[in-house]
């Protein structure tokens, strides 16, 4: 049977979620904002 989550487990999960989630959110934001616009590289 699985043991109940401790406070430390919850802190670790929250930090992991922030650590991987925030860059993904930022990537999604930048992609929707800039990717479909002309890049004007030439």
């Amino acid at each position: 049977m699985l043991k109940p989550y401790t406070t430390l487990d919850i802190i670790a999960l929250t930090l992991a979620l922030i650590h991987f989630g925030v860059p993904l959110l930022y990537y999604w934001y930048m992609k929707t904002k800039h990717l479909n616009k002309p890049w004007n590289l030439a």
Partner: protein
Amino acid sequence: MRNTIHPKVVFSVKILTAILLTVLLFVLLEPLLPYHHLHGDERYYIGRALQNLEFIQGKRPPNKVWFSRGNHPFSAEFIIGTSLLLQGKAVAAPGNPWKVNITEDQLVAARRSALTTGLIGLASIVYLSLSLNFLAVPAVVLYLLSSPGFVDFSLRCMLDIYVASFTTLSLVSIYWYVTKKSRKALHMSALSLGLAIGSKTSWDPIIAGVIILLTIVLIETHVKDKLSAIIKFTALASLSFIATSTITIVRLEDHIRSVLVPMEAG
């Protein structure tokens, strides 16, 4: 007429924001220093820092300073030792750095320099983010503060945070050099890279050095300027390395041996 903010004001606001955030994080993280678990290697680096400090003060002959791996010069130990001295916590160096007898007060004092260096690295990324996109700032700060590696190493008196921060500072300065063509930024990058290599000669500062040299070649227009920038960069990086890892230069033969012996054995 369109109202524009003077670039110097924008620059000052960015720098001020980065400094304020650094101070705020220092105030938040500093109370944690006594409670963070002691890593065995911390004793060793503090012991080496104290030996190096005595060597600089002329109280210890160069051959009585411990050399370990070849990729461990003394720049980070120089900063740790100077920081201990400035805080009035420098004690007599042990003969064997593993056997240093440190109190909690001295450990916290040594860790303060690691935390300050880590936060300077973070501040430089905040400055860079402010130059790119405002939302990148919370993204970067949250990413770093939720990283066990960043927080753990910032609270410990080990070499990793020094090499990471100085390498970051060096690359951020190069962004400044590329966008503003600032010579001062190039010089700052060189000084930071010398400190990074002097803290720990790992792949990170070596690759950063290659990237910076390629950037100089691409950015400067004339061959004469390219050569002059490369020579100045190399000279300044060497200068900051030599000034902080003097013992490595004084005992260059031992240092080279400590690099080559593990290679021959492996």
